[in-house]
């Protein structure tokens, strides 16, 4: 069993005392049996972004999820997901200033469980992609453990790590490898640097779409015109799987 397979099968402990929800069971069934050598063009991806009330999954909460589906490396803007999430606690003023979502504005939004179930249905068998995706997944998994009885099983690809690897390689080819660390790797900065369309920042829908463009760009650049499999992408960008 290869490293990738082991990573794919690695499990995080299920939520204690919460029965496995049917939506999560269906999600796990849809994600089972993935071929790590599948070509990217044959895979489905869902690029997501979340807006949060802070950075600690134990103290803070999700306030919105935005996602867009890709068929292979083709973005399907018509197949997207967006939902606000009613948080348990307060929405700090600093967070509201960033994403402009306030506690009052979220009062009518559905709760975590409902949004998660709908998101898992939208996700289907797709692989999750995100920019600094471990932060998003930290919150999604924490919520899923609380509400659905366990974490998500979809493998994740981080466009931040892909971008770092890409820049490192690009600069190394020019003899400037040391400069890679000093570059700005925020999503808007990368989009600007690579000449990608610009979208409104700190809107989960727009950020998800921006990350989708970034992912397609980095994946196609890594493939350099050749067919690329999931394992190849992993090697090219040292993707982060869980």
């Amino acid at each position, binding site marked *: 069993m290869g490293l990738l397979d082991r990573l794919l099968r690695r499990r995080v402990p299920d939520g204690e005392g919460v029965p496995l929800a049917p939506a999560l069971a269906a999600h796990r069934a849809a994600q089972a049996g993935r071929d790590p050598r599948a070509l990217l063009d044959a895979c489905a991806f869902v690029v997501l972004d979340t807006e949060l009330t802070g950075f600690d999954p134990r103290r803070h909460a999700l306030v919105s999820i935005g996602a867009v589906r890709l*068929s292979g*490396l*083709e*973005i*399907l*803007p*018509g*197949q*997207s*997901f*967006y*939902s*606000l999430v009613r948080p348990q606690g307060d929405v700090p003023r600093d967070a509201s200033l960033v994403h402009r979502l306030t506690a009052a504005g979220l009062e*009518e*939004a*559905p709760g975590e469980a409902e*949004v998660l179930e*709908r998101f898992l249905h939208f996700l289907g068998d797709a692989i999750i992609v995100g920019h600094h995706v471990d932060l998003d997944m930290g919150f999604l998994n924490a919520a899923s453990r609380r509400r659905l009885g366990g974490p998500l099983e979809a493998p994740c690809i981080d466009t931040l790590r892909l971008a770092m690897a890409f820049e490192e390689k690009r600069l190394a080819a020019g003899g400037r490898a040391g400069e890679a660390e000093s570059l700005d790797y925020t999503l808007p900065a990368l989009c600007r640097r*690579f*000449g*990608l*369309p610009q*979208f409104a920042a700190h809107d989960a*829908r*727009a950020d998800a*779409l921006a990350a*989708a*463009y970034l992912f*397609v*760009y980095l994946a*196609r*650049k890594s493939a*350099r*015109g050749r067919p690329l499999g999931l394992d190849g992408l992993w090697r090219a960008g040292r993707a982060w799987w869980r």
Partner: protein
Amino acid sequence: MRASDPSQQPETVQAFLAGVPPFDRLPSLDLAALAAAGRVSLYLAGEAVPVGRDFVCCVQRGGVRLRRPGDLPGRDDVRGEGECFGQTCDLGNGQDGEGWEATALEDTFLVRLPREVFVAVCRRQPFVAGYFADALSPAARDAQPAGPTGCPDPSDGDYLFTRLAGEVASRGLADVPRGPDLRRAARVMEAGQVGSVLVREAGGAVIGIVTDRDLRRAVATGMALDATVETLMSAPVAAIEAKTPCFEALLSMTGSGIRHLLVTRDGEPAGMVTASDLLLAHGRSPMALLRAARRAGDATDLRAISQGLRPLAASLVARGAPAAAVSGIVTLLAEQVLARLLALLEKRCGPSPAPCRWLLLGAAGRREMLPGTGLSLAAVPDDGGDPIVGRAARTYLQALLPMLGEELAALGLRAPGSHLVLGDPRALVPLEGFALDGDPLDHEASLEGFDARPLGGRDEAGPAPAVATGEVFPFGLAASWLRAAASRPAPLGVYRGRLMERDGGSCEALDVLARGSRPVTALARLSALVWCVAPTGTVFRLNALGSLGVVPAATAARAVEAFAFFQSERLQALLTGRESSGREEAPLAPGTLSPRRRHALRAAFAAVEDLRLALLARLDVKEGEHGPA
């Protein structure tokens, strides 16, 4: 809140399509349907982009090069951001997109719209298909051109309220004393080219008026023409003060059932205003300016009229008049001003010792003047074979032409490129010795003679006096000029804010006259020489080339559309750009052009390129028939 409705989701793609013509004019539901069905793909620089039957592609970032299999690289086409290609899209040559090869020029994001969704939108909104089928149609162009500066409000319905009777009244008053018969009154009206005559007492007081309608009625009722004017005149004469608004004058006429009003200044007769004057003045009618030009009493009057050319053109454009109509009217007015100016000069200097024909050259000869275009003229004396009279006439004209030049400059009808010539300019071109060196457009001034048209007359028959004397215009020479003019490819279009040439070069500025109108004019003029097309208008010449089978009729028709597009762009630039740039025809900055204008520009250049290649191919055949040039 859950935004699960697909039409609410792809806002970013929808926002992109909302800026891409022709989708920018779609109702929001159709736009949302297109965006929801769209797919975004990335092609890396140099990668082949599939151009199939299944999708219409819009370039979101980057660009693609399109090539028809078997074509030389010079026939490539390029699509930049905000532009479309693929099935159902016109690729600039009236061809279907299928079979074309597309290559990404750089890393390129495409929004691909599925054919079935696109076709469904086209069925609901026919203008979408029309945009791709005919990029140069008015419907496909920018909906509302930028309002030219100095242009009156298109809905100037208040014109009658703001203009005064004194401003539109004719200054010349025809009058007769008490006593003469109706014949005399009619002769006075005819001599003054007016529709009424005042009857005055010996002391000058106006006691009545006889109008052309009165005379008509007299003839119809069998009144003796030797009756005195007093028997027919209307009295007293209705009069208004010059400061009265036109609207009140019109009310006065309609209320009294009359058509003529005497306009007075401080109680003294100062002019006559008719119902026609008032209606013609409404909306700055070109007919009012024409009439004013015919009646102008001095250079000051003519200056006022020529100063009205630009506002008139702006007004016509604002009302949706095509550039061809505007240039036709501007030429007509300039011609009328010139005719009146020549009459005034003759009054000042005396008549010419021999009859003189005045030929309008260049844009005036082709009836394609735009505001700011100078008049190029030739004076051709007809000495009747008498050398002494001929010499006297030339001496007279040599003295007259500088004066005429000064007057035209004062009227704003001389430009750096316009010139006054003594003698027929076509006869002045040394046919055998005249060799084109480089770009024949550099010799525009010499070749403008072949657009000659007599002042106030129809097009000149025959390209040169040599033809009139039975000689055939040297085919080889005309063909070599045409070949030289057709040797320079038309630009490809605008890509990434630069004007792209077909050889891969590019530049930052677009001179619409130099790269658009003038090459078409030159090709049409020289083709007319080669294929003996007599009338001078570029559109007429192009249509003639199509109907004679010199080039395919569709090629000629598209060249006509391209010429209309270039002229329209020039007109817009002339009306909007002079104040800001300080130049009559400032080059366009390609980077500022909207995708819709880029689309039309590419189609227009493609039409010129097709014309050029068709003429070259036809020249090969014709030269084969005549032997080498």
